[in-house]
């Protein structure tokens, strides 16, 4: 059992969680000790005063004004989100330009070279495919594989356009040989 003058004891007494025996000890102590009795009475008086406190009246249109403030805050957040996104994009563009700006001509030259070599490789593969088909092995897995590779990975200008270019170049080469002879 604790000391009747300790905070723990008083907290339990106020919460009403003293055991039966403790409660008896407490009541006896209150009869004997004037200081505790007065303090206990003062605490009880305080509870009476605070529990009887009238509820403060809500200001007029409190809810409406609050909802208006919420809507205003939501609008302001939307505007800031849009403004923030634009600012971020702009900043990213500036950073990219500063970082890669001087290398821009080199990058475009490299891109052009890659494009041309892709074109050349595609034409070669198409020629092989045409020859394989012409050799009568139309449905061999090799022919299909090459055709699929051409179609999916190396098609720079679309299938028909590329076929047309290949045919045209073949015709031009034949004409050139004819003229030469």
């Amino acid at each position, binding site marked *: 059992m604790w000391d009747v003058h300790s905070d723990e004891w*008083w907290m339990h007494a106020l919460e009403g969680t003293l055991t039966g025996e403790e409660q008896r000890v407490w009541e006896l102590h209150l009869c004997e000790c004037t200081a505790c009795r007065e303090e206990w009475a003062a605490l009880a*008086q305080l509870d009476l005063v605070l529990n009887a406190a009238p509820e403060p009246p809500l200001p007029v249109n*409190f809810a409406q004004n609050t909802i208006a*403030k919420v809507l205003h805050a939501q609008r302001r957040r939307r505007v800031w989100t849009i403004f923030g996104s634009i600012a971020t994009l702009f900043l990213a563009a500036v950073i990219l330009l500063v970082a890669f700006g001087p290398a821009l001509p080199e990058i475009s030259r490299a891109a052009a070279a890659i494009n041309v070599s892709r074109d050349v490789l595609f034409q070669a593969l198409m020629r092989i495919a045409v020859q394989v088909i012409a050799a009568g092995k139309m449905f061999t897995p090799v022919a299909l594989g090459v055709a699929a590779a051409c179609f999916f990975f190396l098609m720079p200008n679309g299938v028909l356009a590329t076929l047309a270019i290949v045919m045209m170049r073949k015709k031009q080469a034949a004409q050139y040989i004819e003229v030469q002879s």
Partner: protein
Amino acid sequence: MEEDCILAALNGDQQAITELVQTYQRSVFGLCYRMLGNSTDAEEAAQDALVKAIMNLQTFEVGRPFKPWVLRIAANLCTDRLRRRKPVVSLDAMGDDGAWEWQAGADISPEAHMEHRERNQQIRDLLDTLGPLDRSIVTMFYWQDLSYEEIAQATDLTLSAVKSRLFRARRAMAENLRQQQEHTVGMEVKEVTYVGRA
């Protein structure tokens, strides 16, 4: 039910936002009023708290009680306001704020109104002796019906810290009340049998 409302408000549903404001306006305003001591400051703080709560619903853990969460926001805003106040300006010195002005056509009589006003002034004087944190704990305990656990959640304190701070605050206020009554009324505190909190 409340969770649905919170989730809908989180998605910007205006009906749900209105419902949340209407459900918690009294609690939030009541806490701000008791902490700040006047209606004008309390109105501003309570509105700020509700707006802040709704705009930050994404940080609320759905499934936990909403009231301690929203009261925590309100108590923090009131604490900031109290700290910004000049120390010489006490709640008592601020005088009456008009919240308890009786108006013709009101539900209660002018006498009852007068009594409310006096009681309110007495409570203000008592709370004025406490620091912001203790004031929020006392307010949540007496007028918001929060459990010790919920007060601990709302104040970021441990359960034992809440209990011990509340006890010391009650003791200080009781002493203050005794002095108040001895000085103003000139009569001794009436002995009343203590009835523990149900």
